[in-house]
């Protein structure tokens, strides 16, 4: 069976329209993620289209008027794309079982594996287009209202971002399914290297690459060009640092899940710990996908809190500031807000991922309860799956962030060790447990005997 892209697109649209309630959740959440990504990228793009220092932007105590601080804001906006990518990654997993059945149905009607992957990728692209279009429709009037005469470059950047988000969404969908071959008889297998779960980790890293590249480009093109060749050092360091911390987070999350699962599975004395530990040991990278973004936010948050503590301390003592105190504190507060938004998105991704893992196992979970496993044991196992691997990972992330603060303290000669920054990993840990706990009502509904009637 050979079909044109147009026919595939029509079929993808029909499949999207005919989705059931669970898939509508995936569509709504993926579109929300795409809208967030478009919003952050559009704002960053609009700011990046400002050239030189002859602009006066009334927001944020004049922070956006200067190229140097403007590039910092752009960088922060682009960094916010990292948790959004993590969120989108979790959203695409919702309803995976239904998707697999649909793919099998397509194969049964004669579609080739390549066509099936293309149709599935187009479905993702259409969903992202929905979010991208919504964000663009809201952004354009806002831009027109706050900026008298936006430049042609600004409009070009806006159009590019609006198109790029659905295209990247479809590409990521195709990449995620590149090793999936749906059989006409209803089962789905993965081909290629036999190390399940590594793919999504690599995909997360691959998706970091364009974000880091865009951050590098933005930082270099919007910074002050009068400072000579040294201007490359900071952006390059940020680029390298982002990739290194991203790779480290994915690796650390997966490795921690595997080690914690393996150790506890042997030593577990309670049923809940045994179930949680074996799930971690079975597929450590599934948990790592959600936890990697948590670690990134924790490192950034702890490091920032340390730096903030030292800077605020310095501002109090410095009597010869170049700008008003509010200029500096506004920048710090905006950064704190950006990190808080990043944490919120990351926790949402964690909640979505936890809910999806329950939905996928719903019949098996109902069978456990039918066989007499107490609901409380399954509730505890669910929370332990989050609590056990995150505790050591967040400890390391917290120490990493504190080291950043301590390093800054040494460089500036502040002689202050910002211990208060350690509250960040504790807060993130509690937040993660609460995010996982939001899935408990769904678990309660899943454990109903009626689930035994579903296949």
């Amino acid at each position, binding site marked *: 069976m050979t079909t044109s892209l147009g026919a595939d697109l029509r079929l993808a649209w029909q499949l999207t329209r005919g989705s059931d309630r669970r898939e509508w959740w995936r569509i709504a959440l993926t579109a929300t993620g795409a809208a967030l990504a478009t919003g952050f990228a559009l704002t960053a793009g609009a700011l990046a289209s400002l050239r030189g220092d002859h602009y006066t932007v009334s927001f944020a105590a004049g922070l956006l008027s200067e190229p140097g601080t403007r590039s910092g804001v752009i960088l922060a906006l682009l960094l916010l794309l990292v948790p959004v990518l993590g969120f989108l990654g979790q959203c695409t997993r919702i309803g995976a079982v239904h998707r697999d059945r649909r793919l099998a149905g397509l194969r049964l009607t004669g579609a080739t594996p390549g066509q099936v992957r293309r149709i599935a990728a187009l479905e993702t692209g259409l969903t992202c287009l929905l979010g991208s279009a919504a964000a663009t429709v809201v952004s354009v009037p806002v831009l027109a209202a706050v900026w008298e005469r936006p430049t042609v470059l600004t409009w070009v950047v806006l159009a590019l971002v609006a198109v790029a988000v659905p295209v990247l969404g479809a590409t990521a969908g195709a990449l995620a399914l590149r090793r999936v071959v749906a059989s006409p008889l209803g089962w789905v297998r993965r081909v290629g290297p036999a190390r399940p779960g590594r793919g999504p980790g690599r995909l997360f890293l691959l998706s970091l690459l364009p974000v880091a590249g865009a951050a590098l480009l933005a930082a270099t093109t919007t910074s002050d060009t009068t400072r000579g060749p040294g201007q490359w050092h900071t952006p390059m360091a940020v680029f390298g640092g982002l990739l290194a911390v991203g790779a480290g987070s994915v690796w650390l999350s997966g490795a921690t899940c595997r080690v914690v699962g393996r150790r506890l599975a042997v030593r577990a004395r309670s049923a809940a710990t*045994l179930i949680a530990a074996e799930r971690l040991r079975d597929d450590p990278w599934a948990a790592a996908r959600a936890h990697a973004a948590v670690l990134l936010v924790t490192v950034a948050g702890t490091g920032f809190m340390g730096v903030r503590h030292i800077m605020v301390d310095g501002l109090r003592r410095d009597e010869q500031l170049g700008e008003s105190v509010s200029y500096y504190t506004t920048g710090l507060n905006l950064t704190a807000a950006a990190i808080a938004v990043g944490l919120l998105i990351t926790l949402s991704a964690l909640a979505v991922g936890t809910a999806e893992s329950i939905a996928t196992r719903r019949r098996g979970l109902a069978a456990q309860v039918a066989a007499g496993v*107490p609901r409380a044991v399954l509730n505890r196992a669910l929370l332990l799956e989050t609590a056990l691997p995150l505790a050591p990972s967040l400890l390391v992330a917290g120490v990493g962030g504190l080291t950043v603060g301590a390093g800054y303290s040494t460089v500036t000669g502040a002689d202050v060790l910002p211990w208060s920054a350690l509250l960040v990993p504790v807060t993130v840990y509690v937040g993660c447990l609460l995010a996982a706990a939001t899935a408990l009502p769904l678990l309660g509904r899943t454990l109903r005997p009626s689930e035994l009637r579903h296949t």
Partner: protein
Amino acid sequence: MSNGDNTAGPLLAGRGLVKAYGRTEALRGADVALSAGEILAVTGASGSGKSTLMHCLSGIVRPDAGSVTYAGRQLEGLPEKELSELRRTRFGVVFQFGQLIPELTAVDNVALPLMLAGTDRTESRSTAGEWLERFGVRAQGELRPGEMSGGQAQRAALARALVTGPEVVFADEPTGALDSLASEQVMTALVHTAREAGTAVLLITHDAQVAAYADREVQLRDGVVAPLGVTA
């Protein structure tokens, strides 16, 4: 094999059971009784209410009307916690698939009910190993369900259902996903072990060959128990 209820002091009895899912009436006044150590096959076409009858009798779902009595105790008034404990300690449940936790090894799956009852893990695993031995799958003890054949996984599931020494085992189409050879192995293992331990078995099946393993057979038609050979 005989027809009709065994009324001589039943261990488990359902009387006038009614259960509806929305507008669909799965049970419409079903009566059934099971004696201690008896193997009873409940047969019937797809949609006749077999699984719902098993769910009501095992306390998995509460009937809309009628009563379930186990060892002289009415199940209707028991709170969910006690019903759960009953299924864990006095009943064993086997489904067509899905009852083993995919992430646990076979031996840990079988050990789980003992651990839930407070037995030390080492002791639980040791007992579980013995039960896997009885069902001929000890060698697969450290494999996960996905790494075992369907027949091996189902025998591990039987070991898990019987490890606590239950008085009744509920088996819902236990061979539904197996080939004829694996079906025979599973049924032989179940019947042999149940007879040895004096465990009663309520066997839900649409397969006449599987039903032939039972002491007695009742047939469900449109939610009521019908005499064998009579169309409702």
